[in-house]
């Protein structure tokens, strides 16, 4: 596959404040090559996902500007996309972003109580981050896990058939950072690109 080479000279001229690691840049170039040469804007969503992961879990203006330069598009083209999609965060988030489903099928299977319990346990409401910077809580719409309700997602992992006890176990594991053993009913992948 012919790789598109990122214009580093142009990037230096813009004097931006962030930069991908060499490994990530290689990954990004491979992604750009999936689309026709004149359509590299197509890589915007996957590259924003990678940027968010690499630069602290959210998209600062510096990061968005950098992505614009890499893809050879206007800054505004990145801003308007970053503000449209619910998975892109524009403000700093906790290390773990808990996204708990609030939609109908989950709601009638105990989802409302799960959401309330999370708020009570973490002492934060929807959209907030715990003071230790560990957890951000967000209520989201249907995660496509309605048959395994109630469901939530933490970063890239799915946690299903939730109960209050299970939440305790999961948050405990994450707090102690022993997130190697996964509670039953979790689905995840380490590598997705």
């Amino acid at each position, binding site marked *: 596959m012919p790789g598109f080479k990122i214009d580093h000279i142009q990037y230096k001229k813009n004097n931006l404040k962030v930069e991908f690691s060499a490994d990530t840049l290689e990954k990004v170039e491979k992604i750009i090559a999936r689309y026709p040469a004149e359509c590299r804007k197509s890589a915007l969503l996957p590259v924003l996902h990678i940027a968010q992961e690499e630069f602290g879990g959210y998209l600062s203006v510096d990061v968005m500007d950098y992505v614009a330069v890499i893809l050879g598009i206007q800054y505004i083209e990145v801003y308007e996309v970053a503000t449209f999609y619910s998975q892109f965060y524009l403000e700093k988030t906790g290390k773990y972003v808990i996204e708990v489903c609030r939609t109908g*099928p989950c709601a009638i299977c105990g989802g409302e109580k799960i959401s309330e319990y999370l708020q009570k346990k973490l002492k934060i409401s929807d959209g907030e981050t715990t003071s230790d910077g560990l957890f951000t809580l967000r209520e989201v719409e249907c995660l496509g896990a*309605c048959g395994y309700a109630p469901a939530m997602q933490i970063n890239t992992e799915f946690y299903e058939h939730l109960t209050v006890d299970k939440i305790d176990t999961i948050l405990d594991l994450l707090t102690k950072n022993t997130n190697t053993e996964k509670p039953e009913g979790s689905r995840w992948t380490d590598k997705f690109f």
Partner: protein
Amino acid sequence: MDRQILLEHIAVPGIETFDVFRSKGGYNAVAKVLKELSSEDVVAEIKKSGLRGRGGAGFPTGLKWSFIDKKSSKPKYLVCNADESEPGTFKDRYLMEHLPHQLIEGMIVSSYALGVNTAYIYVRGEFKYIIGILNKALRETYSNGFLGNNILGTGYNLDIHVHPGAGAYICGEETALLESLEGKRGNPRIKPPFPASKGLYDSPTVVNNVETLAVVGPIINMGGEKYASIGLGKSSGTKLISACGNINKPGVFEIEMGLPVEEFIYSQKYCGGISNNKKMKAVIPGGSSVPILPANLILKTAKGIPRLLTYESLSEGGFETGTMLGSGGFIVYDEDTCIVRNTWNLTRFYHHESCGQCSPCREGTGWMEKVLHRIETGEGRSHDMDLLVSIASKIEGNTICPLGDAAAWPVASAIRHFRNEFEFHVAHPEIVKIKDHGSIEKYT
């Protein structure tokens, strides 16, 4: 009625790997079409099968394929719609998680039929683990010579790439999906032009659902006529139904079209009846966008004929007394459900997911959510029900894409069939102000 076409080998250990899938006859369809059939032959076979799109609209797949502009000098594209975000729907995720090669095989056959050399799978951004599974499966397919250049020495080239979304239900609508794939906001396009003439990068494009593409391989193997003989009438073949809500055995089931709804809900083979021995109150059978029906009307039509899981039977009675098969997202509600609360919840979903392009949808969904919320929390006014019906009717048909209709129908149908519950809410604020008041039936 036990016929399994898509899920036949789901229980085989290792079926998600190329080798095991291949040992079960996987990719035979690719070898067959590349070596023995012309692209026209493949389209003709799919037309014969009567296959209809499994993404929700039920449009005949062969016919859609025949619209692709073959004369265009531009490259042609196939895009697999794996955005699956319609509440109640989780069948595509199940297919991709367990049978990724079934989808890839179907995409290769379909691409060949359409003269496509580059195809994309647009997966909703939340399904990162599915993206991992698909990429792994694709690598296996490449290294076994079924993807890339000169597939099986036939001179046919095809690349398939996985593309992540980033959290937006609207990107399941096919033209919004194409915008999103081009790196833009998911604003649906005005049609015409249709994607078949101007789709991705203004090139002829076909967008198909995961389940639609996954069944293409089996159809080629068994022949279109055989597939058409399965199922019932114009609802040929089998369908994946993802069942959820207050049932004993939520999950994904492959049913032969024509299965009675009653059997589906109560048989141990499928949903296993209502959980906690409760009574069934209502069902939304095709994803949250289709009309809700009370128990009596989902089991039997207004004429008293048992309802079947087919496109035709579920829509029998039109919007007055019928509903739709949609995506097959089957949501069951028990006797404790508060219909008003559920309608408010789903309307909040559509408000949240409206792209904001068309005023009737952008403003109407928010307005309906507000009115429903005040009814649910004991602040309703006596003419609110008429107001809701009026807002819904002004959204319906007045938007660029069908999200407007999808937001209007649940509200209109809930009021049509459960008006008394809305009226009770307005008349008895002291009761509905109790949090978790549940079904109002116990108070009446």
